[in-house]
C-alpha cells in the first residue's frame, strides 16, 4: 500500500458555538493537516444541520487533562464547604426576598 509510511494527519478537538450567546462546546474530534483544513472539515463533519455559528479547532496534543486518579484530591475538598451555597443560610421569611 502506498502512503502507509507517511505521517497521519494530526488530531484536532472541535468546539462549536451552537448559537450566539452560548459558549463553545466540545463536539468531537477529527484529523486535518492544518488549522484551516480542520475548521473546513469541522464544518462538514459537525455542522451539516446548522448546529453552529462558530468553530474552534484545537490540536489534541496541546490539551492538558486532569487524571481520573486525582479526582479525590481535586474535588473532594469542595464537598464539605456547603456554606458556599446560598441555601446554607436560613433567612427568616420576614426579611423578604434575598
Amino acid at each position, binding site marked *: 500500500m502506498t502512503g502507509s509510511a507517511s505521517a497521519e494527519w494530526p488530531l484536532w478537538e472541535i468546539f462549536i458555538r451552537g448559537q450566539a450567546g452560548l459558549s463553545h462546546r466540545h463536539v468531537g474530534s477529527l484529523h486535518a493537516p*492544518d488549522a484551516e483544513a480542520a475548521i473546513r472539515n469541522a464544518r462538514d463533519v459537525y455542522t451539516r444541520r446548522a448546529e453552529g455559528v462558530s468553530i474552534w479547532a484545537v490540536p489534541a496534543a496541546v490539551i492538558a487533562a486532569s487524571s481520573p486518579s486525582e479526582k479525590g484530591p481535586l474535588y473532594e475538598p469542595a464537598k464539605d464547604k456547603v456554606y458556599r451555597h446560598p441555601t446554607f443560610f436560613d433567612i427568616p421569611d420576614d426579611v423578604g426576598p434575598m
Partner: protein
Amino acid sequence: MYAQLVKSEASSETQADRDFQARIDRGDTIEPKDWMPEGYRRTLIRQIGQHAHSEIVGQLPEGNWITRAPTLERKAILLAKVQDEAGHGLYLYCAAETLGVSRDDLTRQLLDGRMKYSSIFSYPTLTWADMGAVGWLVDGAAIMNQVPLQRTSYGPYARAMVRICKEESFHQRQGFDVMMKMANGTSAQRRMAQDALDRFWFPALMMFGPSDAESVHSAQSMRWRIKMNTNDELRQKFVDQTVPQAEYLGLTVPDPDLAWNEETGHYDFTEPDWDEFFAVLKGDGPCSADRIDAKRKAWDDGAWVREGLMAHAAKKAAAALAAE
C-alpha cells in the same frame, strides 16, 4: 448489526476487574483516561472499528445511484444521506481512537481483511428501488441497534451514537418515502419495489447476527454494557415493526411462513440462511471483492493528497516560524 460477531474477551478476575464491573453495574460511564480491562478495550476497538467501517463501506452501494437518481431533488437527498454516512464513520473512528488505535491503522486492517464490515453492504444495489429498500430496511435495522447503544458504558461511543441516531431517522424516512413513491407508481415501479424488498428482506434480518442465546461473547459484552440487547430480541422487534409498514406499502414480505402469533404478540418468521451470512461475512458476498477494491483504490489514489497536504502544512508552519 453494523458490528456483527464481535469477539469479546473475558478478563481475568482481579480486584481491579471487579471494581470496574461494579462501576458498570452502577451505571457509570467509562471515559478514555479511566482504567479499563484490556479485554474491554480490545473488544470495543473491534466493535467500534467494525461499526465505523460499515458506515464507510455503506456509502458505496448508495453512491452507486447518486449520478442516476431520478430527479434533482432525489439526487440532493441521496448525496446528503451518503455524506451523513461518511460523518458517522468519522464520529466512530474518533471514538475508537480514544482507545489507543489510529484511524489509519483501522483502515489498513479493513483493507487487508483483518477487520470486517457489516454483511449487508456486500449485496448489490441493482435498481433505484434499492435506494428505498436500503433506507427503509437497512437504516431501520441499524436504528434498532443504535438507539439502545446511546446508553452504552463507553462515553465516547455513547456520544457518537447520540449524534448518529439524530441523523439516522432522516435516512429511514427518506427510504420509506422512495418506497411509497414506487409502490404507488406504475405497475413496473411496483414490481421494482417488490423486487427490492424480496432481495433485501433476508439480508436485513441477517444484520442482527445469528441467535446469540448461547454465545459467550454476547454474555460478556452485555455484562460490560457494550451490547444492550440480544440479536434475537432486536430482530424480532425489527420484524414486528416492519411488517405493518410493508402492508401499508401494499408489498409482500418474501416469507411464506410469516404469521402473526396471537399468543406471543409477535410475528413468527423464517430465519435467514446463516450459511450465506457466514460466507458473506468471510468476504464471499456478491460484492465483497468490489467493496474492498473500491476502498483500496480510494486509499491508494488519495495517498498523494494526504502526503501533499501534510507537506504543505509543514512548509507553512516553517515559514510562519521563520517570520517570527
